[in-house]
């Protein structure tokens, strides 16, 4: 059951999508992270000068935010890498938080101490999204290369709750942490926090071989999906709005949603970096329209569109491109998973 706020957001997004207004966006402030998660596509060393030299400056992010707001942006995700690694994070966030946007921060939370939690309580985002990588120091060590981070994250979550900040938890499932899943669910339930599960990892942008090695095999993926189905039914069975849609993207990428990478590239989502433009070179509006047009040129995968099990599958052009090199070639891994899922 959706509350009035969610209903309003949904209505606005549908209207924005129809009118091609960029109402939902994400800024990837940095490609650096203090953790070193093996499956992550964006975790350069925190002192990597080649990255810091190419990251947009605070003033550039603020300028893009202002232009995007004027173009209709309402919901903004600020993410990384790890956002709190940026020394100028407070400058960026303070400026953007006053623009009349609904801001969500994505973080691993390991750098949130008491002072930072209090500061966030004074200039609160609408929400903080925190990804959990396990339910123990041991698992954090295996997944993120940093066992100590586990305790820091748990402490940070409790500090943020004390500040009255709304938190959404998420968990990315891979071989190394799938056995922690029940304990993560318990942790979230104990604090009455929603938990979103990312159970499909695909090889995006770089780090592709490692991602394939550390994700669940198709059968284990199907088993896991069947296990959590009652908890997260929606992610298992995405509702396709219009299967006869002539657009390759069944999501809102390029219609109302965009993503801007740490070096200033606007693209449909975090996963698809071959399509897009540079707002700082051509202006936000022109970059947005260019992105929208390029999305319309992406070919439809007719095999997937006509597949009778499509409703069980979460495939999209970004995932097909990442897995196969083509926008319109079925992903064998997902086909296998769906076959196990529907028959096991």
């Amino acid at each position: 059951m959706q509350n009035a706020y969610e209903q309003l957001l949904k209505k606005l997004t549908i209207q924005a999508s129809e009118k091609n207004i960029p109402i939902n966006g994400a800024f990837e402030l940095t490609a650096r992270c203090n953790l070193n998660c093996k499956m992550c596509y964006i975790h350069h060393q925190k002192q990597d000068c080649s990255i810091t030299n190419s990251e947009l400056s605070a003033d550039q992010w603020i300028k893009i935010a202002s232009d995007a707001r004027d173009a209709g942006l309402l919901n903004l995700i600020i993410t990384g890498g790890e956002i709190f690694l940026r020394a100028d994070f407070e400058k960026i966030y303070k400026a953007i938080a006053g623009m009349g946007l609904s801001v969500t921060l994505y973080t691993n939370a390991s750098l949130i101490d008491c002072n930072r939690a209090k500061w966030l309580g004074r200039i609160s985002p609408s929400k903080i999204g925190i990804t959990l990588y396990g339910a123990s120091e041991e698992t954090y060590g295996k997944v993120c290369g940093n066992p100590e981070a586990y305790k820091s994250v748990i402490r940070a979550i409790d500090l943020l709750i004390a500040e009255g900040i709304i938190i959404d938890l998420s968990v990315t499932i891979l071989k190394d942490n799938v056995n922690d899943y029940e304990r993560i669910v318990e942790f979230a339930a104990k604090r009455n926090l929603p938990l979103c599960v990312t159970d499909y990892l695909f090889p995006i942008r770089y780090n592709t071989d490692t991602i394939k090695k550390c994700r669940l095999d198709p059968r284990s993926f199907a088993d896991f999906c069947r296990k959590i189905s009652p908890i997260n039914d929606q992610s298992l069975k995405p509702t396709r709005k219009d299967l006869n849609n002539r657009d390759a993207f069944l999501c809102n990428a390029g219609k109302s949603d965009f993503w801007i990478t740490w070096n200033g590239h606007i693209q449909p989502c975090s996963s698809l970096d071959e399509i897009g433009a540079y707002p700082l070179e051509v202006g936000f509006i022109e970059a947005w329209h260019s992105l929208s047009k390029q999305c319309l040129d992406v070919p439809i995968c007719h095999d997937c569109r006509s597949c009778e099990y499509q409703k069980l599958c979460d495939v999209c052009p970004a995932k097909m491109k990442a897995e196969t090199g083509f926008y319109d070639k079925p992903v064998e891994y997902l086909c296998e998973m769906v076959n196990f899922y529907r028959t096991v």
Partner: protein
Amino acid sequence: MKTKANLILREIVGTWIIVPVGEMVVEFNGLMNLSESGAFLWKKLAVGAEVDELVAAMLSEYNIDEETARADVQEFIGQLQERGLLI
């Protein structure tokens, strides 16, 4: 009568909404949508208009009688007070 600080009125795809920022996010986390006349009244309240001024503004802007205008103003103010958006 005035709207609280850190509440921003925006028009998004033809819908008027109130977006909280800063400290107001903890107090009022969400969005509130307003009708066209609600947005009109909000702009007056943002600069500290009293009830009689709001009624007069409604009468000059919309083709309605005073009784209806006053009832609409009172109802709108009641909704904002209920959500703690006025000082």
